[in-house]
């Protein structure tokens, strides 16, 4: 069994002249809770799509659990769970229908699928609306259902694109605890989020992408070490992020000009 859960080599994706992801070399060790950060339009979603088979790379290579995605896509997909951007739900199914459909699609037998679907709906507090179609779910409920679907088959690697967006604090707490327990059991979680506090609290390792290029990668401690801070005060992930990506146009340490938006202040 390999120690590396996700590995990319020179992973590149172009859209016409735009290089959305540029020769990315990324490595995530098995069992890590891995945060993937970047400003808007940096290439996070493009990367996660390539890592989950939703988008073909222009060049480069993706390996998940030591299996080459390009040559063995079905084998890789069997091992991973995904909450894609937009959640990927079928609006006209009920929550139960959807989980049962996904469970069967991942090859679980009917009995196991039914049992797990019921347990997950109960855990996600969605069990009290068995007849409600997904189209009538709130955003938070849809998010919880998408998460339930991503884990129903017991994946070894979980890709979550903004998983906590729109989820209430109570459910988010339960989810974080569940995800924490999953990593303790050796599941690798690859998470993107704009909320630095969540990433800082959950993730042991972080990578930062800016303008399609991987600009930092390592444990939180390693990244903190590279950023100067006030003596005695702990450097936050937000400070690390701002320091590396910069507040303006990706230039580290650049402050906004004092006369900007003066009419507002």
């Amino acid at each position, binding site marked *: 069994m390999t120690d590396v859960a996700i590995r990319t080599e020179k992973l590149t994706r172009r859209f016409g002249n735009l290089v959305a992801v540029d020769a990315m070399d990324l490595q995530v060790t098995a069992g890590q809770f891995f945060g993937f950060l970047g400003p808007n339009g940096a290439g996070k979603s493009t990367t996660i799509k390539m890592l*989950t*088979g*939703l*988008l*073909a790379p222009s060049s480069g290579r993706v390996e998940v659990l030591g299996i080459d995605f390009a040559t063995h*896509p*079905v*084998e*890789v*997909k*069997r091992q*991973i769970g*995904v909450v*894609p951007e*937009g*959640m*990927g*739900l*079928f*609006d*006209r*199914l*009920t929550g*139960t*229908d959807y989980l*049962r*459909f*996904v469970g*069967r*699609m*991942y*090859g679980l037998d*009917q009995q196991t699928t*039914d049992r797990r679907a019921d347990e997950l709906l109960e855990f996600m507090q969605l069990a*009290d*609306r*068995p*007849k*409600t*179609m997904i*189209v*009538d779910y*709130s955003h938070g409920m849809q998010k919880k259902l998408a998460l339930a*679907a991503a884990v129903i088959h017991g994946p070894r690697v979980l890709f979550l694109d903004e998983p906590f967006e729109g989820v209430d604090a109570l459910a988010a707490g339960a989810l974080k605890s569940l995800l924490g327990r999953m990593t303790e059991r050796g599941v690798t979680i690859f998470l993107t989020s704009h909320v630095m506090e969540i990433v800082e609290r959950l993730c042991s390792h972080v990578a930062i992408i800016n303008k399609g290029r991987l600009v930092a990668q390592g444990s939180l401690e390693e990244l903190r070490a590279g950023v100067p801070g006030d003596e005695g005060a702990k450097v936050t992930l937000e400070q690390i992020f701002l320091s590396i990506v910069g507040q303006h146009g990706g230039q580290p340490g650049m402050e906004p000009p004092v006369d900007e938006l003066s*009419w*507002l*202040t």
Partner: protein
Amino acid sequence: MADLAGPISLAEQIRLVAGLRWRMLVNGLRKKNNVLDLIGMGFVSLLALILIIGPCFAFYFAGYSLVSAGRLPWLAAPFWAIFIFWQVIPIFAAGFGSSFEFRTLLRFPFSASAFYLIGLAYGLANFPALACICWLLLMTAGATVAKPSVLPIMLVVAILIILLNVTVERLIGSWLEKLLARRRSREIFLGIFILLMFSMQFITPIQRQYVKTNPNPAPFFGIVKYLAPFPPSLSARVVSGAVRHDFVDIAIGLSGLVGFVFIFSALLWQRYAAQYRGEELSESPAPSRAVPSRAARWRSIPQIISTGRTAPGFLPAMVGPMVRKEFSYLVRNGFAFFLLVLPPAQMLLFSSQFGGKHPIIAGRGLNADLFFPAMMAYTILVMMGPAYNTFAYEGRGIQTYFSAPLRFSDIFAGKNLVSAATIGFEVALCGVVLAWAIGPPSVPALFATIFALIFTVSGQLPIANWASLTFPRKLEFGTMRGQRNSGVSVWIMFGAQIVLGGISALVLSTARWSGNPWLPAEGFAFLAAAALSGYFASLQPLSELAEKKKEVLIEALCR
């Protein structure tokens, strides 16, 4: 502290809203990056122009001739035409979307009265309103040329009619907006609307039957007198009074019109005031839990299937769940479900027009052996349409197919199986309706038709699957606007159906040519077997194509 801007005038607000509508129109055109769409839009614009300019002559002529010839009772007809056009077309144009854009203006600092007036101005700036105003002005010009003294009264009537029409149109729009804000009511309304439109097709046969049995149509026109108290007839009464110098008629007509304007304005004010106060139109946040009742038994079919008790176990592992999912989608797509009524109803309509003992259009009813296969071919033509955009309703769910460990051939097999089963069911139903309406076909013709159906359906499915992958277009449940397959996909469908229909027609004609009534059945049996083999052979290459086309699919369906 930031500087706050001062209030702007109502005229400036209206100007800004007009500018906004113009920008929306221009930006909408900018989105047309496809040459075919541009050509289509050119045609539509040309048609729209013809639709406005053509009736302009008719309304001018109506105004002129009715006044000059003294045929004053007929003056109500053009007013009614304008009224109906103005009120009905915006309902079509609204397209049963979840909301009109106008409400979004509420976030700006308008007073309630400004909101009301801007609402009216917004209503004047749409195509039917502009067309009707043109026609009304041309009718005024026609009447004035015929009798110049009617100009002042015609202008007053025109202003009142414009005010009334725009108020009523806004009122209907506002109620529709409230009604259609809920998904379920939107879907049911759309289904009923389509059926209503279709049922209008039966008016001609019923009317012909009526005329046949009642040669004197006088009682039919008797209903006209009941229309007298309504605004278009009142307008005609005012103009007629002006021509005849009958001031009582003018006074009654004008009072009626002003009264209607007042009543509808009050009703519209009430609706807009509710909107202005922040009326909540969206879906209820938490649909109530379903209680076990008779209604629950109606929903039990998909539930039984989804619990697996009646799961089609003979299907491959991945195809079974797809079939269940597709079936659930069919049952829960109220709109599509409603439309399953249409093919048998069309059979009834066509058989009353072309077949049987008393056809309306064809002089002599068509032979059942000819009519039966023709109608079955028509059913296939109608029913195969959705198969050419089979992922239309998947939305973001399409991502699940690509992130799950499965072959796309299983997805196609599941989808095609449900399509074929639905088509089979509808064809059987249509067959029964036709047999009842015009009599059953001969046994050789029946077998030939059955094999021909298998041939045309299985022959089209690989093409339809390919088109679904290559030219996908997202469709939404319960929405009318923009709910059509991609233009290229439609052309592919027509092409495939012409080719397969042509082959079928040739094979059918062999019976007449050879004198052997069983020859077409044998020919179609062979073709059906070949088409089925071709279908199964196509699944693997299509599965590979799906992998190549996944970006196109995801981009088109996840928007």
